[in-house]
């Protein structure tokens, strides 16, 4: 355009960036979390002689892999300003559907399609209620949390589905090589995919824009409802993936499967530095948070600390990790004043 040059002469040169990438990393949440993770690792290896054993560490990954895979999708959803509290119930429903199919003689490939399909359907239902009817997601998903698991109870009652085909066990129990489990590999792959999706694509940018200002995003030509709907689908899909892994690992389905996981998933996301108010967060942060939570629970498990005492620690960690930087900032500000 001709006037670009014309006006450029009057315009001031604004630098692209105020801080170098290294600067930003040094002040980042991820670095803080990484330090916590390293500290937990070191503490654990001193506290228990059993910790630094490849097989044990490999077993320990089950404490977080399935939850983390949901947490990646949940991170995107929370960044966009929504939340899905029904994820654990989606697992229950998807697992029930797979169990039902097994009774009808379904083989592993069909089971996988069913698990993913039910996850997608549940996600679509949530997405429709939130984007189609404009209802607040936190409430909608409290409702579907009861509804989805409720359907499992209707179908299963006090029964359990068992008898999954033996090759189905691979997803939750199989090893890819040495101590590397299939779930760990799946976890790593989904982590990379979600990191790319959120941080390197237009879709990811739209997610951030929506989380910061949904109206502004709409006025900028972003199809807000579509993006949000897609995020609910994605969360449903990842719950389906988790359902496959967990069902395969347990080899059985009961309606109470994965009870209470939604809060652990949300905790993981928040610990990972995703703003619960939407608008900011990162996948690497969630990955590190998953490791931290997994290692803390495993480390305490090795010391036979009861789960509930562990949860005190997770609760303190959640608050402390978020509070510490703020306290430090306040002290620095006061000293400067």
């Amino acid at each position: 355009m001709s006037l670009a040059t014309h006006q450029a002469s009057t315009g001031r040169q604004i630098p692209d960036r105020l801080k170098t990438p290294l600067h930003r990393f040094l002040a980042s949440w991820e670095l803080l979390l990484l330090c916590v993770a390293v500290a937990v690792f070191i503490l654990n290896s001193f506290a228990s002689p059993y910790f630094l054993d490849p097989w044990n560490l490999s077993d320990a990954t089950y404490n977080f892999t399935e939850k983390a895979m949901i947490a990646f999708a949940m991170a995107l959803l929370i960044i966009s300003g929504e939340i899905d509290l029904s994820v654990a119930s989606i697992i229950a429903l998807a697992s029930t559907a797979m169990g039902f199919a097994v009774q009808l003689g379904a083989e592993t490939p069909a089971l996988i399609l069913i698990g993913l399909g039910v996850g997608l359907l549940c996600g679509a239902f949530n997405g429709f209620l939130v984007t189609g009817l404009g209802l607040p997601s936190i409430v909608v998903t409290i409702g579907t949390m009861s509804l989805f698991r409720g359907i499992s109870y209707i179908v299963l009652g006090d029964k359990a589905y068992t008898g999954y085909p033996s090759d189905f066990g691979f997803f939750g129990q199989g090893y890819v090589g040495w101590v590397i489990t299939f779930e760990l590999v799946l976890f790593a792959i989904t982590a990379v995919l979600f990191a790319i999706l959120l941080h390197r694509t237009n879709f990811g940018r739209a997610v951030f824009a929506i989380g910061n200002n949904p109206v502004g995003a709409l006025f900028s030509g972003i199809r807000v409802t579509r993006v949000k709907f897609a995020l609910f689908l994605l969360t449903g899909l990842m719950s389906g993936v988790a359902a496959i892994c967990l069902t395969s690992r347990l080899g059985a389905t009961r309606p109470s499967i994965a009870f209470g996981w939604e809060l652990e998933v949300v905790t993981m996301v928040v610990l990972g530095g995703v703003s619960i108010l939407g608008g900011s967060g990162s996948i690497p942060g969630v990955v590190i948070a998953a490791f931290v939570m997994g290692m803390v629970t495993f480390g305490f498990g090795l010391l036979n600390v009861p789960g509930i005492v562990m949860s005190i620690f997770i609760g303190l960690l959640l608050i402390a990790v978020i509070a510490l930087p703020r306290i430090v900032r306040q002290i620095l500000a006061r000293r400067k004043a």
Partner: protein
Amino acid sequence: MIHSLIKSRETVLAAAILVLIGAIASRFPAFVAPSNLVNVFNDTAPLIILALGQMVVILTRCIDLSVAANLALTGMVVAMLNTIFPDLPVPLIMVIAIGLGSVMGLINGLLVWKLDIPPIVVTLGTMTIFRGIIFVISGGEWINAHEMSAAFKAFPREVVFGLPVLSWIAILVLIGFIVLIGRTALGRAFFAVGGNPHAAVYTGINVGLTQCAAYVISGALAGLTGYLWVARYAVAYVDIAGGFELEVVAACVIGGISIAGGIGSVGGALLGALFLGIVKNALPVVNISPFWQLAISGSAIIIAVAFNATSNRTKGRVILKKAEHAT
């Protein structure tokens, strides 16, 4: 205009409740017997009290997920106190319960106010911490009916003018809230802070302090309910009222309290709690298989919220004269 809007929302909910009761009564007349309705109300009283506390928190754009854990911890503490000092008078126990609940509310409030940590994170954290503390102080042991003093257990059950004390307490709290919300500066500040926190600063309202006050109120009520709960069910253990926080939030939202803050009413919270309470009480009466209960309450929440949202869609401004007359 806002009054008529809120009124209409409440009327819709009240009508839904009446229809629900009517439908149940048509097949199970015993359900609407006064004695049973008293029972249902009494059963719902803890939910009403907690929903009112939760309401002020939600009004200020916060959320308190720690209410049930607060309730359980306070309940455990007063139950343990009762076993150690069986002669402690009930009023003193209630003061202790309210005080302890307030302190826990204050912890939430200070974390939100002074450290600016998002409310859902704070209360998610304190929820697990409070539960854990119960385990630590009780060693995981239960405190059972026979370990509690008779006076301790009797108070909430005492019937006064045909209603148990538990119900009367809920009614008193309700009246207190009508005054607090409608007629005090603090009550209006809850709306201001939630409606537009940015603007609240400009009007000199201390946003953090107001939110903190909301948490203290919610905590105090959770503490009070903690004693009532433990005394009524005559048992205290780590998991009492587990998951109740979601029910409390659901009651608020069904009652039309906007999760985005700034919108809501005492009547709404009451009706939301009653709605859930009636559904819960009616299911076993209507003899629906226990396996259906979860799905039905889930659907009820979704339908109520969807209904509420459509009946409450803001019409916005109307420019055309013609349209103005038409509506």
